């Protein structure tokens, strides 16, 4: 409950630690004066998990202490109690879900955006079903207590209870988002529609906030819980505004990125080079991605995630994109001078994930972009083995740059071309290319199926999960 507040305090403390501790500060700077994204701090996330648990326990207990044994034995008492409890826990879990996608930097750096989204999706069925149950149980409980019919009670609740109407609208909006997120339906809906419906969830939560405070037995006449609950929600709203809106707007305005050149790299693959101000101050690590919004008439409303294909070279940043969808195909037609809004960088596919001294980097298709910038960011002496896979040699984008970087780091480059059957990476071929595989970190980037296959192979060959790092993109 007080999660967000504590997170803030913790982060402030950690920020101070970084600024006072010399080695940590040095680590966020590269030799070239570029700013690196701060190191992940798993300790903070562990603390956050404990606080999230504390909140859940406190919320549950709050629902229980608000009840007396007398109330339970009264008509509709048990049902009403269950209704209040499911409402409290459901709302608390909704708060956690918002926090999981609020782009809190310290969470992003440890769990990664895909990890956080996975948790968000895994958690999602709970708050929605608990809140629906809450509405049903309380209506039934009140109907029992007043000895009226269920439907009559629905009317009474909505029409004469304060803030119940808006809470009902909120619940409706939540159900809408829940339905559209069901996998079978989600696949048939445009991303933008899904996103907009999701946006309404903030409205839904705002709508349902008041009835909790005004009617909830744990809050009526309890100023302390009222204040703590309100503060938790206000802090969460603040975090969402700060990190989903404020920070991207700030970075966009500060760096003033504009397209300077669109350069073909391979068939269907283009590099977009943007020029901006203070690019050396963008805290980015090799292998990370940003959400790019190209402010043209027909693209401004879409933000898509693309990896940087090189570390920033002030005043330039570069992303490399393969034409696989409408958006990425349209990038080839970008005019120089187009303004660019950015959000990020995000991603845990960085040198911070590295557990061992040496690494093997595996990329398929356009996954090469993340590997290319990661390679540039790896410390010297990592002797990287880089494996690139593509259908044809001419499809290997950026291969010249990669060969150069690999050579300078004393590593080896393997190019696998051919059909999937011919150039497969499996339990037999991988050890031949990388004999000391089990002593290396495995970084793999490519389409989802490819990444999943390599992860399986690496596990099979004895690479522990902590040493396997992957970034997948959906086609």
């Amino acid at each position, binding site marked *: 409950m007080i999660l967000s507040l504590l997170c803030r305090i913790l982060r402030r403390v950690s920020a101070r630690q970084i600024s006072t501790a010399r080695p940590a500060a040095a680590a966020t700077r590269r030799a070239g004066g570029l700013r690196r994204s701060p190191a992940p701090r798993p300790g903070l996330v562990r603390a956050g*998990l404990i606080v999230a648990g504390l909140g859940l*326990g*406190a919320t549950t*207990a709050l629902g229980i202490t608000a009840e007396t044994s007398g*109330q*339970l034995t*009264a008509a509709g008492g048990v049902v009403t109690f269950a209704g209040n409890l499911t409402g409290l826990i459901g709302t608390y879990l909704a708060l956690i879900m918002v926090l999981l996608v609020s782009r809190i930097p310290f969470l992003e750096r440890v769990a990664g955006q895909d990890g956080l989204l996975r948790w968000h999706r895994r958690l999602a069925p709970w708050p929605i079903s608990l809140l629906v149950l809450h509405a049903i149980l309380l209506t039934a409980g009140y109907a029992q207590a007043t000895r009226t019919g269920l439907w009559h009670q629905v009317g009474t609740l909505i029409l004469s*209870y304060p803030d119940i109407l808006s809470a009902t609208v909120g619940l409706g909006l939540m159900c809408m988002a829940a339905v559209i997120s069901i996998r079978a339906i989600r696949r048939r809906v445009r991303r933008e529609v899904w996103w907009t419906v999701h946006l309404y969830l903030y409205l839904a939560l705002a709508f349902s906030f008041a009835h909790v405070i005004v009617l909830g037995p744990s809050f009526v*006449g*309890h100023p302390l819980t009222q204040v703590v609950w309100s503060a938790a929600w206000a802090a969460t709203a603040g975090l969402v505004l700060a990190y989903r809106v404020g920070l991207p707007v700030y970075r966009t305005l500060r760096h003033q990125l504009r397209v300077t050149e669109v350069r073909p790299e391979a068939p269907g693959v283009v590099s977009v080079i943007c020029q901006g101000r203070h690019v050396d101050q963008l805290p980015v690590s090799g292998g990370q991605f940003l959400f790019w919004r190209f402010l043209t008439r027909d693209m401004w409303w879409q933000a898509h995630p693309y990896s940087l294909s090189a570390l920033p070279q002030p005043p330039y940043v570069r992303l490399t994109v393969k034409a696989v969808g409408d958006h990425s195909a349209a990038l080839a037609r970008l005019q120089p001078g187009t303004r660019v809004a950015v959000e990020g960088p995000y991603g845990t596919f960085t040198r911070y994930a590295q557990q061992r001294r040496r690494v093997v980097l595996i990329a398929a298709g356009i996954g090469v972009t993340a590997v290319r910038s990661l390679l540039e960011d790896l410390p010297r002496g990592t002797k990287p083995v880089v494996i690139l896979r593509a259908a044809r040699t001419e499809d290997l984008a950026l291969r010249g740059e990669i060969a150069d970087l690999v050579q300078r780091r004393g590593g080896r480059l393997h190019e696998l071309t051919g059909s999937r059957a011919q150039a497969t990476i499996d339990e037999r071929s991988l050890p031949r290319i990388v004999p000391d595989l089990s002593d290396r970190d495995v970084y793999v980037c490519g389409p989802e199926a490819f990444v999943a296959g390599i992860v399986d192979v690496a596990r099979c060959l004895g690479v522990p999960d902590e040493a396997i790092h992957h970034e997948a993109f959906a086609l």
Partner: protein
Amino acid sequence: MKRAPLLVLAGTAAGFVGVLTFHTRPVSATTPGQAQPSAMPSASSAATSSAAAGPAAAGPTRAAAGSTLVRSAAGQIVQFGYGELNVRVTVNGSHITAVSVTDLQTAEPTSQQISEQAIPMLRSEVLSAQSANVNGISGATFTSRAYVQSLQAALDKLNVK
């Protein structure tokens, strides 16, 4: 983050126990009159206490009959979250002879209904217990609490223990 579920569970247990063991004082609604409870049962104090409590909470009054033993007083308006109420009590000596709710207002009909159902039961409980020390009505905890508080204030005014 393999230990993530463990950490969350530990936190949940701690938070749960923490709140359960955290004791708050019971809700006390305040009305202007509460700050100045009348200590004396005499008629002279009645004027001051009723003045302090405002028009809603009338002070103790003597019964018209020659007996000085029958007195009555209203407690104070107590807000109980879903509404507010005030209780008037009549005593003969220290024997509670009548209790009534002089003022009941709630935010919405269900609470009104619940309170109205509970009030007669509270009345009979008070009359049989002969004090404000009653269990309260299940399903109407807030109403009961407010009722008892207002009743106690009225009894205090009459100096009935």
